[in-house]
């Protein structure tokens, strides 16, 4: 599948963008020229260039260092919230599709109710209720993604459970639990993971949006959304304060989407020419 991805330049560019962000996040302690929270009082609002490659903010903090450290928060929240959503939503969808009947109907209508909220609004409600911190943010974003993953996992289960190998498995004495998690799960995993990469982009955006309106991780922790908001106060004097984190968000979201699209094309049998 890796070779297939590389045959598509868009996917390759997306993968490179993602890798750059991941590398930046992982290597932040070594790459960042300054401590992200160190305030250089005499160097406030320094424009990009010179000692501060991307300039400094109103407290004299190095923007490049903050972006590198902020990548950790963005990625950590995106990965953990989507993982939680895949595990919970995927399980709900699989069980719902496999059991079928009234139970399926009730579960899926509940999911439809969840789906009817735009993810930002739903995240907003949860964070506003629970209070802004890292765990609550992960919970809020995960909640917005549970319903889509339930739907994504359920659809293939509906057709898979009618396949002969499921009945053959039952005839060999396998329990429903075993059928579901040993035999069906590997068959839907690629679809779910592909949607996971696409939804990571959404999670990054939601996190940035919540941070932007002040419901994200509390300052002074560097987050991209938070940096944009802080920069907004000086948007006319020091536009770079909002532009750099904005570009960072843009590149990560773009990269994740490009990888997700590429993976989806690679795993979609209709596009692959197989039946």
């Amino acid at each position, binding site marked *: 599948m890796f070779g297939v991805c590389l045959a598509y330049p868009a996917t390759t560019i997306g993968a490179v963008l993602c890798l750059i962000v991941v590398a930046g996040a992982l290597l932040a302690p070594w790459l960042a020229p300054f401590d992200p929270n160190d305030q250089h009082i005499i160097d406030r609002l320094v424009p990009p260039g010179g000692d501060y490659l991307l300039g400094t903010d109103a407290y004299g903090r190095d923007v490049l260092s903050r972006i590198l450290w902020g990548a950790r928060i963005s990625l950590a929240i995106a990965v953990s919230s989507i993982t939680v959503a895949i595990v919970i939503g995927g399980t709900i969808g699989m069980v719902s599709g496999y059991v079928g*009947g009234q139970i399926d109907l009730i579960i899926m209508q509940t999911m439809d109710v969840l789906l009817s909220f735009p993810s930002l609004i739903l995240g907003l409600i949860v964070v506003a209720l629970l209070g802004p911190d890292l765990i609550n943010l992960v919970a809020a974003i995960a909640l917005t993604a549970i319903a889509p993953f339930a739907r994504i996992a359920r659809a293939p289960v509906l057709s898979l459970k009618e*396949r*002969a*190998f499921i*009945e*053959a*498995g*039952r*005839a*060999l*004495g*396998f*329990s429903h639990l*075993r059928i579901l998690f*040993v*035999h069906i799960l*590997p*068959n839907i995993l690629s679809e779910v993971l592909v949607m996971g990469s696409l939804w990571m982009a959404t999670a990054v955006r939601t996190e940035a949006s919540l941070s932007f309106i002040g419901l994200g991780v509390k300052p002074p922790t560097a987050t991209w959304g938070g940096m944009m908001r802080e920069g907004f106060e000086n948007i006319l004097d020091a536009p770079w304060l909002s532009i750099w984190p904005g570009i960072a968000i843009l590149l990560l979201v773009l990269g994740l989407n490009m990888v997700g699209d590429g993976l989806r094309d690679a795993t979609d049998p209709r596009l692959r020419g197989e039946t």
Partner: protein
Amino acid sequence: MADPVLSVEHLRTEFRIGGAWHPAVDDVSFVLAPGETLALVGESGCGKSVTALSVMGLVPSPQGRIAGGRIVLEGRALVGLPEPALERLRGARMAMIFQEPMTSLNPVMTIGAQVAEAMMVHQGLSRRQAEAKALAVLDEVKIPSPARRFHEYPHQFSGGMRQRVMIAMALACEPAVLLADEPTTALDVTIQAQVLGLLADLKQRHGMAVLFITHNLGVVAQIADRVAVMYAGQIVEEGPVTAIFSRPAHPYTRALFAAIPRMDRDAQDLAAIAGRVPSLDAMPTGCRFASRCPQAQVGCERPQVLAPLDEAHVARCHVATAVRGNWHQAD
């Protein structure tokens, strides 16, 4: 006859159609002795597969149910047994192979893992032990170079090879009874002959009983010891394979044989059975074949029972059984 390994008595399996339950299998009884092959013959929809699924406890619920009768496997009554107990028996004491070898294997698991899985579940073997045994079983069903093919996926196997893998999976735990639901229907004739030969060979080696479901009378002649002919959910005739082939008594059985094209004659019309099978929700109370039967007469409107023609040969037809096996002499 030795104690039967499987006996089915007055089995009635129903399906719900439009709010009412209708029997797809009605009053089906048979016994299967160790090492014996009973062929269950009949056209599509006559209840052959439902009979096998009933034995396995795999009748789809909630739209289907076993409404009556007894199924006894090695002295244990299966009807009403809780699901976990049935799961322990399936694959271990009774196994089933299906018609579609192309879709009966999990596309994302290796062949070896699939054959090994049942042994890990039922015999508590470790993965390593189970895989060692799986390799031996694959060798037994004559998969060429099994060690190399062990880690391949189903799409790398041909239909015949997949059916061999299915047989290997079914036989892995050495079941007492094998239910084979048209296992060769999807295969071409030469592969079919190989698989039938393999099944006969394995049956002999392991001494298991086989319920062989088919609509192919040629296959029946090749593999069966006894034959039960099903029509519209009932067994209409049952007997040793030689008796059924030489002296078919029930008009339906006779019509089936008449419908086989003959190679030894010049141009001939194919003999078809006029009319169609009555639908589940419009089953007549009398003989279910009467509306299509050339011998239909007074008395056919009464419910028919299986009556003996001669020893071990029974038919559900008052006309055939009234003359007590003299039918073929008058013919």
